[in-house]
């Protein structure tokens, strides 16, 4: 076998191995998307009921609560960025990071200090590499987040909101995550978690102009709000984590699918080249044989004469 042909054969073998791996990763991601989507759906009743309850308290009483009232001057905002622990997901992480950076720039332009909180090793690595300050970060659960994880993430945020800004507290919480629109579309977006704008919440909860009943609060509207709002934040964080996980798997599936397709194309091109090399080798051998025998024939014909 010629040297050229051997090189082609070797490359085909290596690309085939890569293709097998990416194909497997594509299939794993595809099955995980379905699972993650199911989890998003399972968490929806809780989120919906909670939103309904928050709206009921917010609109049904005139309570002023630290978590719902807008500070007059916002000194510091917290930005929670949700990324994944692992890459191989196309532009998934860079899109989320980009969205977070745009938001940070916007907030800083408004004269606010920005505290960054990060979920996922990828986002953390990005910030650490640029030596930017990160207040707190979490990782290790981005593939399959549980409610306990959401609680862990939400706790310092709620604490920071309840603290005075002079002591390092924050006035606003923004969350940047990747919304799972469909298998093909996932968009990174930012959203203000706190302070809640009740109008928006009300719009989400009662789109059909449904009138909320006058609730009897047990023990009191303030206490209910006190207990309700942290749960609301947790459930929003949980939902964002789940959507982010589903989006990540969908992005991985797509990235791995195009990697598999590319590997297939590469194998095809390489096999063509290998075939051509093999054919060239054969042609050369034949012409060598023919040339050799012609020379031999010429030589014998000469001695005959």
């Amino acid at each position, binding site marked *: 076998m010629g040297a050229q042909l051997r090189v082609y054969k070797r490359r085909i073998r290596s690309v085939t191995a890569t293709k097998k791996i990416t194909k497997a990763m594509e299939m794993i991601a595809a099955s995980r998307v379905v699972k993650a989507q199911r*989890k998003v759906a*399972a*968490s929806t*009743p*809780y989120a919906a*009921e*909670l939103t*309904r*309850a928050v709206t*009921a*308290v917010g609109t049904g009483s005139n309570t002023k609560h630290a978590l719902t009232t807008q500070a007059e001057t916002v000194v510091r905002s917290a930005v929670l960025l949700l990324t994944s622990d692992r890459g191989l997901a196309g532009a998934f992480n860079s899109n989320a990071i980009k969205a977070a950076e745009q938001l940070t720039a916007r907030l800083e332009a408004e004269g606010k200090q920005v505290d960054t909180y990060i979920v996922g090793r990828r986002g953390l690595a990005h910030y650490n590499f640029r030596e930017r300050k990160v207040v707190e970060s979490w990782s290790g659960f981005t593939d399959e987040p*549980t*409610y306990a994880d*959401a*609680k862990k993430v939400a706790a310092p945020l709620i604490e920071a909101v309840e603290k005075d800004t002079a002591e390092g507290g924050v006035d606003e919480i923004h969350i940047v995550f990747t919304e799972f629109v469909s298998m093909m579309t996932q968009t990174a977006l930012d959203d203000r978690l706190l302070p809640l704008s009740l109008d928006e919440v009300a719009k989400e909860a009662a789109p059909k102009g449904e009138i*909320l*009943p*006058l*609730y*009897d*609060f*047990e*023990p009191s509207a303030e*206490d*209910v709000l006190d*207990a*309700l709002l942290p*749960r609301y934040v*947790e*459930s929003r964080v*949980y939902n964002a984590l789940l959507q982010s996980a589903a989006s990540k798997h969908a992005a991985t599936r797509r990235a791995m699918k195009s990697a598999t397709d590319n590997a297939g194309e590469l194998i095809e091109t390489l096999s063509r080249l290998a075939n051509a090399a093999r054919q060239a080798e054969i042609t050369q051998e034949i012409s060598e044989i023919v040339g050799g025998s012609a020379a031999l024939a010429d030589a014998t014909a000469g001695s005959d004469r």
Partner: protein
Amino acid sequence: MAAELHVAMVAADREVWSGEATLVVARTTSGDIGVMPGHQPLLGVLESGPVTIRTSDGGTVVAAVHGGFISFADNKLSLLAEIAELSDEIDVQRAERELERAKAEGDALAERRADVRLRAAASR
């Protein structure tokens, strides 16, 4: 047909139980509360405790609920809890072990959780 109310018990990550009922008893921060069909709209904070649901076919469903809310309006009752388990889902042995451990470590919250689980499991 007796008056009924629709109950939906949802935990953070799943719907635990839903169906028709005639009476729901739950523990709020200011004491036990019983809700029957036609109750006035209510929103309360739940304590860690067992919730008893009398279903319209005469059965009883008991669940251990840890923290959360009860909200009632338009004959629809929702029980929102971070953690909620039906009595027949509770692993008694595990809860007992948990109770021992919590007592040994003096973890009042965990002790209460385990205690609620055991009480809910005992009533099945």
